[in-house]
């Protein structure tokens, strides 16, 4: 391992924070306000069956479906805006202003529309994740070199050639940047959706524990949520490394 050094400092920092947390919470001694990390881990272990077999799959389904829709719509919209000036003028301001709407405030409406089904949560996830994907992909599609485009034209390239052989490869690194932001946001989206109305899921579990003043029970699913976020992020990083091998040569 060449990069062991890179990980030493953050590892020390994390251990230190957890230690301080542990000490402070033991001094305060009020579990329902500030549970100690060990209590959270114990809770995680005790409720492992419901957490891992019921709530984790429910949340994961929301995240993955939400992300799939988000990629499909985001990339589609980005392509449309990149080929049509009219589409760009029509959609771009709406996309930007949609980000100023507090999604949390809207979420109850989705519960009204879609009920406690998975779709109310999927919509929240979609709304929160499609922005980074659309904007990054769009910028990426526009980032392709004008000189290369002209060179391809002089070689007799068609519009289709230029799109697939130039615009798409140019956009790919930007798309991955957007996707990295989106996967971390997707966890937040799913959790918000579940907090506001759900019958299962990690967010729902956390909220239920809150009503029971079970501090450790609130934190345990949050640990899992953040683990999902990290794993998804790492998956995207690996995909990026595989498909953008050339970037290491730059």
């Amino acid at each position: 391992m060449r990069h062991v050094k890179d990980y030493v400092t953050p590892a020390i920092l994390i251990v230190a924070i957890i230690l301080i947390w542990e000490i402070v919470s033991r001094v305060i001694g009020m579990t329902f306000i500030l549970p100690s990390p060990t209590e959270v881990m114990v809770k995680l272990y005790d409720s492992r069956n419901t957490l891992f077999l019921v709530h984790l799959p429910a949340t994961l389904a929301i995240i993955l479906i939400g992300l799939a829709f988000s990629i499909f719509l985001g990339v589609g919209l980005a392509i449309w805006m990149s080929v049509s000036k009219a589409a760009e003028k029509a959609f771009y301001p709406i996309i930007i202003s949609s980000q100023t709407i507090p999604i949390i405030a809207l979420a109850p409406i989705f519960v009204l529309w879609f009920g406690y089904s998975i779709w109310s949560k999927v919509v929240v996830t979609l709304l929160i994740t499609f922005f980074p994907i659309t904007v990054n992909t769009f910028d990426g599609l526009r980032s392709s070199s004008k000189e290369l485009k002209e060179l391809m034209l002089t070689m007799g390239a068609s519009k289709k050639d230029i799109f697939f052989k130039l615009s798409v490869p140019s956009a790919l690194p930007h798309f991955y940047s957007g996707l990295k932001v989106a996967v971390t946001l997707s966890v937040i989206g799913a959790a918000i959706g579940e907090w506001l109305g759900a019958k299962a899921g990690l967010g729902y579990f956390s909220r239920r524990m809150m009503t029971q003043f079970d501090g450790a029970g609130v934190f345990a699913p949050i640990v899992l949520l953040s683990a999902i976020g990290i794993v998804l992020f790492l998956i995207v990083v690996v995909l990026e490394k595989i498909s953008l091998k050339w970037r290491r040569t730059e």
Partner: protein
Amino acid sequence: MSERSLQFKGVSFHYKESKSEQSVLILNSLDFDVHKGEFISIIGPSGSGKSTIFRLITGLEEPLNGKILINGKEYPNRYGKVGYMPQQDLLMPWRTILDNAALPLELKGIKKQEAHKRVSDLLGEFGLKGVEKKYPGELSGGMRQRVSFLRTVLSGSSVLLLDEPFSALDAITRLSMQEWLLEQWEKWKTTILFITHDVDEALFLSDRVFVFTEAPVQKLVEVHVPLTRPREIRDINSPDVIAVKEQLIEQLRKQVTS
């Protein structure tokens, strides 16, 4: 030598200015002929419209008036009719050397396998053996220019336009690239138009030198290089050539000062 690869007949051109109504004429009913298999250098100060000539020939721009004939024919769409090598190598960083060079073949609809085979056959001649799996980011400037030239040659065109291809290279690499280019040109028997602002480079490489004079360009000053082929770099120090060189520099200086 009577066949003509390229003809400009009364070509006028100006770029469309988006803001102001008036636009500056760059070419004013310009005529010139390039014979088959000739090596022509185009020389002139920056902004004199050298690159504009290339943009017109490739079809990136359309003339206001006049005709541009390639191999004796006038095409409604000149895209894909000549091989154009830009100033920067413009390789695609995400493609391997093999895939970069195969691009023009791919665009012509040739199957990937066949295209790769044709590239592989030429790699040795272009000094690129063993790097075909690498990415452009891993190669030196000179190597990248060779890939770019290979790609231009693979366009299959009989007319190649090279726009200051060696201007970004250091002096030593540049010299060896010039010698190498002559060697290749003799082998390929193509017509080459070569933009440069280096008088020595123009003299060493070409049969004729076109000097861009007053703007708008109405008439090209044409200079024959008094050298036979094959040439060596020391030949440009012969008295005949030095006389021509002084004449060229005189022409260029006149424009800069006036």
